[in-house]
């Protein structure tokens, strides 16, 4: 069984490598975005040393690493699922001897690994040449970041599975999936570190899983918080992973029944 998923990851990896223009355009997008936000934040800071608990240097690192983390956790499996449902391919997936959702997750993981190795790693290296950039200094800090990034991937993928599963019932929900993407970008802390938001908003966001997707790993990377707080964040991530599993499970059950009863 494990071998199957390894193979799925590998195939997705190879598929992405085959799309050359896609690769180059991806690099350009990430470079532009990081560059633009870097300067924008530079202007925002102006002469100030510290905003929202982050220094200019930490902010720079935050912007860069937030985009790089996104390269890893971001995927479009909800859109893919929607397409498979619409084209009726999902019925075929059902008769295969594997779990559809795990397959989707494996594919997303292959995609994430690809982007991390081929966009993020060279990208972060390039950026560190141009803008002052601090890497975590201890292996422990690196370990915490990678662990937290892994959880971020799982949570984001879970959310995608959820919106993808909704397609089984709504048939068309492109609008919702797109809205979700934008909301995740904002509430996960990609465009704005969570610590910038007013207090009431921060409290509210504490009850939502989104900041576990980007803010936690990115802020751990910048070293702006003590290790104890970092471990606490990772703990929250683990809890979210478990919590989101429940609605996925329920929806998946119902989606299967629906497929069996109504034939998609």
């Amino acid at each position, binding site marked *: 069984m494990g071998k199957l998923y390894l193979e799925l990851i590998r195939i997705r990896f190879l598929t992405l490598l085959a*799309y050359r223009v896609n690769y180059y355009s991806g690099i350009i997008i990430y470079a532009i975005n990081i560059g633009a936000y870097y300067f924008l934040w530079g202007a*925002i800071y102006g002469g100030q040393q510290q905003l929202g608990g982050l220094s200019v240097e930490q902010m720079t690192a935050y912007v860069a690493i937030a985009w790089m983390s996104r390269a890893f956790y971001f995927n479009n499996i909800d859109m893919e699922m929607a397409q498979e449902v619409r084209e009726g391919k999902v019925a075929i997936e059902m008769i295969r001897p594997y779990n559809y959702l795990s397959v989707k997750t494996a594919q997303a993981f292959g995609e994430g690994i690809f982007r991390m190795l081929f966009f993020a790693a060279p990208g972060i290296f390039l950026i560190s040449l141009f803008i002052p950039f601090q890497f975590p200094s201890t292996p422990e800090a690196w370990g915490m970041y990678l662990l937290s990034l892994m959880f971020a991937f799982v949570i984001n993928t879970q959310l995608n599975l959820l919106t993808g599963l909704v397609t089984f019932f709504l048939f068309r929900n492109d609008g919702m999936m797109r809205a979700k993407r934008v909301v995740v970008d904002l509430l996960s802390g990609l465009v704005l570190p969570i610590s910038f938001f007013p207090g009431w908003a921060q409290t509210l966001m504490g009850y939502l899983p989104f900041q576990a997707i980007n803010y936690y790993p990115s802020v751990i990377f910048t070293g702006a918080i003590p290790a104890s707080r970092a471990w606490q964040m990772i703990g929250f991530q683990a809890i979210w992973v478990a919590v989101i599993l429940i609605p996925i499970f329920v929806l998946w059950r119902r989606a299967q029944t629906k497929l069996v009863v109504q034939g998609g």
Partner: protein
Amino acid sequence: MGEIKHVLGIFATYLGQYFKTRLAYRTDFFGELVSNLINELINLVFIVVVFQHVPLLNDWTRDEIIFIYGFFLIPYALFSMFFGFWDFNERYIIRGEMDRVLTRPLHNLAQVCLESIAPDRIFGVITGLIIMGYAAIQLDLSFTWYDPFLFVGLVVSGMLIYGGVYTAIAAISFFSDSRTGISPMIWNIQQYGRYPVDVYNKVIRFVLTYVLPFAFVGVYPAAYFLRKETWYAYAAFTPVVGIVFFSIGLVVWNWGVRKYSGAGS
């Protein structure tokens, strides 16, 4: 004259088709509307939150930035209404619908635009007007009788700039037979130009003025209404830039179509 009437007739028919299609999926229709609105508001949130921490952004006040953003939304909404083929690569090249387009007697770009027209984006214009109006009141801006005409001209030019750049980027698909990742590119580049260009460094400012002239979609024309005289010359150039870049887009597109017909498979 007859030709124009013909094109307008086709446009009306396509528009009709669009609404019939959309009404078939009402939940998704509203989902799209909400998603567009959220998308527009999220950037507003960014501006508002940032200005809670700083009073000025390179000498620009919060309301000025909001005004620029509101202005930017209008040409952008028109652009996404008429150039809605964000899945061009997937739909026309990989799934091969371009072949069908080429067997029809109408310019192929016009067909692609019409087939993917998205009239619901008109709501973006309304959102933009509201945001702009709010900022204008806060800033106590005054307008002359000819400002509305200039406004329309600048908005249309802005749309042409996006349209030209996007058409040229979409035409990359003609040169590659596989996925090109163009739609995320569009998704991402749309946002530049809605902040004052002087926050960026020289290189980016140059790029946003001459290479991918998105500054002409937002900050330059908006600066005219904000009476920032330093930028008047740029604002005046907006229509020229619009025409030039749309022509470039068209040339690249036609080149791509020739290439597509030459290679193909």
